[in-house]
């Protein structure tokens, strides 16, 4: 069917791509825009490895057509930190051993980022409930939860210091 030009902002930059309506957002992000952070895990909206942020919402990008994101503002893991300037969450995952194989990590951190926007000071239970849409088969979650709680504390301390 007719391809259409899709315009979307990804990590602060505007991109225009030509895509069929049936193309899923995760593939357009990875293959047409070059953001390889969102991973294709289960492709059935269970695992959360493809999680990105769209207009302030955590979204599994395997369960959205790119056409639905026409005009949207999207953040992937690439938009949160860089190899030389890691995001607090990335540093915290590294320090607390919150990853082993790393496959779930981009989705996990992107989701954790939105969780902390909505609830800057979560309890352990709220963290676990908040990442319930992301599966990790390595860590057993314990260190992921620790990493998110520690990042939250660090962000809050930095905010307080700035005031």
């Amino acid at each position, binding site marked *: 069917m007719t391809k*259409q030009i899709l315009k979307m902002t990804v990590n602060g930059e505007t991109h225009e791509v030509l895509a069929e309506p049936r193309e899923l957002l995760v593939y357009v992000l990875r293959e047409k825009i070059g953001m390889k952070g969102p991973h294709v895990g289960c*492709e*059935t909206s269970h695992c959360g490895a493809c999680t990105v942020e769209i207009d302030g*919402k955590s979204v599994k990008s395997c*369960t959205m057509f790119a056409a639905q994101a026409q005009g949207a503002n999207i953040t992937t893991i690439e938009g949160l930190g860089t190899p030389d300037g890691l995001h607090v969450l990335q540093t915290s995952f590294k320090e607390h051993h919150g990853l082993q194989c790393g496959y779930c990590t981009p989705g996990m951190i992107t989701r954790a980022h939105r969780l902390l926007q909505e609830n800057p000071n979560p309890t352990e239970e709220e963290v676990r409930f908040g990442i*319930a849409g992301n599966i990790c088969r390595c860590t057993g979650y314990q260190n992921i939860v620790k990493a998110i709680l520690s990042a939250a504390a660090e962000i809050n301390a930095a905010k307080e210091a700035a005031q």
Partner: protein
Amino acid sequence: MIPAAFEYHRPIDIGGAVSILAEHGDEARVLAGGHSLIPMMKLRMADVPHLVDLQDITALKGITIEDTRVTIGAMTTQHELITHDALFAAVPLLREAALQIADPQVRHMGTIGGNVANGDPGNDMPGVMQCLDATFTLEGPDGTRTVQARDFYEAAYLTDRDDAEILTQISLNATRGGYAYEKQKRKIGDYATAACAVLIEAENGVVSSAAISMTNLSDVPVFSETAAQALIGTSCEPAAVKSAVDAALTEIDPTEDNRGPVQFKRHVAGIIIARAIERAWARA
């Protein structure tokens, strides 16, 4: 998993959406949050030559509360239901139920309209809406009409909605008293093995009114008038809860699937219904 090709439509008002549906008949489907429809399209179990995305239609969004009447636009997401404090004050059952649906990402996309209109017996909101005695508004080529949630569901994926109609809003009264949505599921994100919504109002230490409905225990949600009647005038003592549970269990018709055999589902249902009644009573 790549769905079959389709034409993508993105109308800006309800009239535009209805005319696309009227033009293409059963070749067209509306897309709300997409978290039931898109997986079906990827599996090629749903063939949708014309997909009508409703996201630009502002008339389908928003929650309004006037006195005790609550109106919810069909495109309101589960996340928006959960985070709306005035809605929680008016109808706390909705937040309790929505929090038990899927996971955070799915709740950011999944909508109340999609959940009630899809007709999947596993969806939680149809039973909740029957418990709340909600009214659905449908708009189609012949105009607007309303239908009660308790009359809407005919069989699995079959509802009173015509192919060319769109479920545009849900309206219901604010509730008083106790409420509970109790759900047994195998893991986060799963559909219910059994779930039950209960509303209870009490006067002078006894139940003055009650409503009980169940999810995923038949091919449609089950609203049990006789179960509710069994609680009236009681103080939800164990014998009263047991007669309500027994009454409710006569109205369900679960089928064996990967959540278990029929006997197991009936067992789980009994426990879930009793817990829902007890929690609603404790809050009444």
